[in-house]
């Protein structure tokens, strides 16, 4: 079977966005179009009737092979504000556990006239596999959105982070962005780095303990630092990542307290960044592990705005995909 290594099934032959799988390889104009469209959707959520009829009659299937209440909920809200019908499948507890393969599950849902799949999977590449399958069976009219796959990508989080940065900083050129924490296991970090590179920020710094920094990081066009004070100094944007508790058991870190001492964002560390720096976090955050409560609740934190913007960004992605 002809399968070129650099195939990018998210873009059609005529350059339109068919699926959203990764911010890697997402052309700048498509990325900016998503952000611009999201700006227009922001206002819809402020109305008495928080709905527009764009996706009326479309069926959006949420397939979460890995748990995530918040991401699933924001996708569900986004689809409902576009008037789509949303079907949440508890896949972890249903067919897959009875032995059905992933693509057999998809074929069954295609037979139920699905129009869009929102997929979260513990395995990197699962949404890619599904998108290629749909393209292969000539059903690229059905769209796939990656809602997080393994360590690979979480493109809508990356896009909502870009939306948040643009909202507060207006322009990407000249910005210094720090990403702090468990870079190794973070699909959010990867999605952010690809998008930030495409949008042309001045500098991206990744900061974390050596055990949580992937060796190949420098090839992604970023500066690497192990010292938080040094890394945060003079930054415009600080993106804190969630420290997954299960990492403590794997001998990568001594303890949550030790981690907070070295890599927790505390007021005195934040003071080293630019005075108008913003603090972001994809959630759910662990207070006292990666972030101090005073910072999380402080005036520079934009963490809850990210949640609001996330709905508008997901509405933009869904409506652009369904129109292509």
């Amino acid at each position, binding site marked *: 079977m002809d399968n070129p290594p650099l195939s990018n099934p998210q873009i059609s032959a005529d350059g339109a966005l068919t699926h959203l799988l990764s911010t890697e390889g997402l052309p700048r104009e498509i990325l900016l*179009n998503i952000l*611009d*469209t999201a*700006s*227009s*959707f*922001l*206002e*819809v959520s402020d*109305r*008495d*009737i928080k*709905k*527009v*009829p*764009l996706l009326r009659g479309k069926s959006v299937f949420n397939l979460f092979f890995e748990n995530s209440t918040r991401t699933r909920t924001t996708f569900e809200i986004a689809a409902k504000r576009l008037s789509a019908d949303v079907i949440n499948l508890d896949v972890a507890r249903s067919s897959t556990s009875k032995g059905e393969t992933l693509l057999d599950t998809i074929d069954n849902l295609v037979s139920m006239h699905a129009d869009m799949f929102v997929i979260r999977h513990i395995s990197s590449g699962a949404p890619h596999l599904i998108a290629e399958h749909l393209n292969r069976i000539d059903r690229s009219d059905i769209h796939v959105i990656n809602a997080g796959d393994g360590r690979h990508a979480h493109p809508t989080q990356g896009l909502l982070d870009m939306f948040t940065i643009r909202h507060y900083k207006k322009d990407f050129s000249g910005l210094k962005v720090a990403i702090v924490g468990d870079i190794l296991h973070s699909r959010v970090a990867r999605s952010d780095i690809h998008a930030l590179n495409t949008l042309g920020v001045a500098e991206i710094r990744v900061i974390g303990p050596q055990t949580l920094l992937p060796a190949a990081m420098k090839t992604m066009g970023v500066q690497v630092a192990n010292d938080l004070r040094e890394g945060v100094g003079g930054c415009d944007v600080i993106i804190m990542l969630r420290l997954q508790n299960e990492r403590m058991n794997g001998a990568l870190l001594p303890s949550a307290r030790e981690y907070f001492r070295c890599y927790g964002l505390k007021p005195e560390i934040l003071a080293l960044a630019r005075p108008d720096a913003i603090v972001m976090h994809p959630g759910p955050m662990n207070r006292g592990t990666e972030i101090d409560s005073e910072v999380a609740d402080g005036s520079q934190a934009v963490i809850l705005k990210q949640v609001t913007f996330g709905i508008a960004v997901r509405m933009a992605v869904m*409506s*652009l995909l369904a*129109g*292509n």
Partner: protein
Amino acid sequence: MPIECFPDAEAQCADLAKIIRPQLNPGTMLVGIHSGGAWIARRFSELLGLPDEIGLIDVSFYRDDYGEKGLHPQVKPTSIPFDVENRPLILVDDVLYTGRTTRAAINELFDYGRPASVRLAVLADRGGRELPIYAEFCAWQVELDPREELILEPDENGKLRWRLEKHG
């Protein structure tokens, strides 16, 4: 039709404002459809001494051709800075043609509330209606070939003027 023959769009705005003035209900607000209608609504608001606040509508999220054409590449946010409930409204657009844009705009307005009335004001009515929609205020009736598109745009001094584009 050579471009010299086009009526002066700014003068049309002034004429239309004169027609609208005696028929204004108290509390009337203007709602312009992006982008031509928004420019004209701003003119009306000055000429008629109405409040600066005008509503702006981008009907992209309500269009009936989304299934075929997809989302318009440059969607602008809709902004209705006043309460629509029980309010007399004048919807403003540059060109009335099939009526589908007006239909989409009315649908969108009703997602903000139940206005007391909605009347339509346009600079040009080029016929070709596909829906039962009628402009109560209109400055110019014009017959055009279906391949022709009438476009309103500001010139280098910000004055509105007409332009004709031929397709196919």
